[in-house]
């Protein structure tokens, strides 16, 4: 919505209908619409030309109808054209990753779709491309339908979920408001009773007040322990709806279980610090760090020298290399990072034979 609004304001000034040459001065409400051949026309012209059925477009002579004209959403006509083509393509080419055995097949499929789209957009071999598309659509009719249904289901579920969330929030709010009201009522009741007692009983004011206080304390502590169970009970109100939407719930459960399974597998194997790659075998002189069993020191790995010949804690830098600047040190950079990187680079691919 915002896009069309900004677009309209930017096009306001120099709009001229290419057919009748009226501009916005002559017709302040002029709106240009775009046809399937992507030529613009103001609404009056459309009315005039196509009132009696299909007629040729004044610019390119293609036969058009009044209904095929639509509002322009993009300033650039080529973008408009491409979007329209892609929308049509996506209704036919809606296969998903799960339909393919390997990632490579999926990528190949996507690439062929892109190829066809490109050809259509740039009007290369339009006939052969259209034939190829139709052939594909015929071959995969069932799968297309299944996927279209799936998409529909998903969008339905998404809106339903949103509805549920909204309703839940509303309910919670109402419950909260009710509670507040009840509390206020109770308070005013209390005060009324207190005044009654003070007015009518024989005991002294002090004893009455003390008794009141003790009761009120007990009440607040009880209420606190009560609060926790009530919050859980409010979310339990959704099962009320599950009966009518059981078909949706079943699907959702299935998907969720699948997702959870995948997540479990991924979670069990996933360690954010661990590298996906095998460690470089640094050989003699270092803690054997193959397979990520490095000596970790707060996430850093210091190359540990175990040689008895000339044990050194740090390395001597070559001459001409200055010390680290203050800024680098403050940023957390240490010389050890540089040493580690250089030594790892020195041992990478050392035994790879030439071709």
């Amino acid at each position, binding site marked *: 919505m915002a896009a069309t609004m900004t677009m309209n304001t930017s096009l306001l000034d120099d709009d001229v209908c290419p057919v009748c040459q009226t501009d916005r001065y002559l017709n302040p409400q002029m709106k240009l619409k775009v046809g399937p051949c992507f030529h613009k026309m103001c609404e009056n012209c459309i009315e005039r030309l196509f009132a009696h059925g299909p007629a040729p477009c004044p610019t390119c002579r293609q036969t058009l109808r009044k209904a095929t004209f639509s509002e322009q959403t993009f300033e650039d006509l080529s973008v408009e054209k491409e979007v329209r083509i892609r929308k049509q393509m996506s209704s036919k080419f809606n296969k998903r990753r799960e339909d393919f055995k390997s990632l490579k097949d999926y990528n190949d499929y996507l690439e062929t779709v892109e190829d066809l789209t490109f050809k259509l957009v740039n009007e290369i071999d339009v006939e052969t491309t259209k034939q190829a598309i139709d052939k594909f659509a015929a071959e995969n009719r069932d799968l297309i339908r299944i996927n279209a249904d799936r998409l529909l289901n998903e969008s339905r579920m998404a809106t339903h979920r949103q509805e549920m969330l909204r309703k839940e929030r509303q309910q919670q709010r109402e419950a909260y408001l009710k509670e507040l009201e009840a509390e206020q009522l109770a308070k005013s009741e209390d005060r009324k009773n207190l005044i009654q007692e003070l007015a009518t009983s024989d005991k002294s004011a002090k004893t009455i007040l003390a008794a009141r206080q003790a009761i009120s304390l007990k009440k607040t502590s009880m209420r606190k322990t009560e609060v926790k169970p009530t919050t859980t009970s409010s979310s339990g109100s959704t099962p009320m709806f599950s009966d009518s939407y059981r078909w949706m719930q079943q699907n959702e459960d299935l998907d969720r279980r699948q997702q959870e399974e995948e997540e479990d597998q991924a979670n*069990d194997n996933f360690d954010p610090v661990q590298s996906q790659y*095998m*460690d470089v075998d640094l050989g003699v*002189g270092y803690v054997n760090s193959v*397979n990520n069993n490095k000596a970790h020191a707060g996430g850093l790995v210091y190359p540990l020298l175990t040689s008895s010949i000339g044990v050194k804690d740090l390395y001597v830098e070559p001459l001409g290399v200055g010390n680290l600047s203050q800024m680098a040190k403050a940023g957390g950079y240490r010389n050890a990072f540089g040493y580690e990187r250089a030594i790892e*680079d*020195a041992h990478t691919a050392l035994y790879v034979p030439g*071709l």
Partner: protein
Amino acid sequence: MVAQLESTNGTQPELASGSNAAFASTNGDVNGVIVAAGGDAEETQKETVPLKQLYEQSTQYNHWRYAQQQLDDMRNKVNQEVVSSIKQNLQDESDLRTAQGLSLDDLPQDLRYLTVEDELTLLGFYERRIVKIFQYWKLPSYVMATAVVYMKRFFLENTVMDHHPKDVMLTCMFLARKTENYLMSIEDFSKVLKSPAESILQLEFLVCKTLRFHFTVHHPYRPCLGFYFDMQAVTENMSKLQKVYERALTLIDTALHTDLCFLYQPSQIALATMRIASKDEAYDFERYAKYKFMSNESAAQKYNSQLLPILEAIEKVLKEDRRCVEVDKLVATEIDKRLKMCKDPARNPDSLLFMKRKRGEVAGDDDDDDDDGGNPDKRVKLGDSA
């Protein structure tokens, strides 16, 4: 792991298959195991999935490794293709001229086309020009090395007769400054190098395309530093080690002009240069080799059979390859003169052939002249590039 490699090596499957088995077993000799973080006993069996080697994911490893024979073949092939296409075009041009009754005088006769040898000499000359200019700029050596490697990779698939190495040199330098994060704007660049900006920018996309957009290049400089650190474990005389390191760096700079970057890994080149430098500076390399690579029987056997032959081969190349020596300017000028004569008429805008081709293009008739290896003017459609 093997399957993974074959899919990434889609372009050169014949290279990958042979060496897969070799380094699947050599490096580490252990398969990585994915450890279950806090796994329960009842959970399903965790599979042993071998971890991948990081260097195997680099484009330099996957796409820019060749055997010497392959390099020679590629260069010969490109050279012959261009020579035959130029001959064909010259023939066409002379035919056109005779048809129109124009003189054939200014067409070169009996051309001595450039051989692969000449091309490499000329390229070596221009590579060293790159080195000199970067020395003036005082940037780290890997930026210069990247520019040189770009140029070498570019001329694996093109010849100097198609694109003059001077233009390609400037473009590679400009590109290398960008990719290695020492960007210089095109205005400053063309001013400093006294060269028009358009020619550099025109070639830029072609160079990127020929490089297949593989901009990251790994050089032996950091591995050399790594070995310098590593050797400190067995060194008492640090000043000698320092000299060895500096000598090794200069050797790496000369190695840059040979084909070593295509044949071997940067760490191997670095170790080889340290070995040669130790010999020159009378540093005991064998002591380090024993400590590092021959700590037990099996490791020694592995070193002697796998690593040592590579180090010796690299040493041989550095001793014997002509390109390690500076190219004489006179020789280069002579080759350049011959290059100017080899101008492809299809590229000369004044020639009849060019105009005929252009008219054919505009009229839209299908060009079936792919026998000339692709008209160089049509090869890259830049569109409305900047």
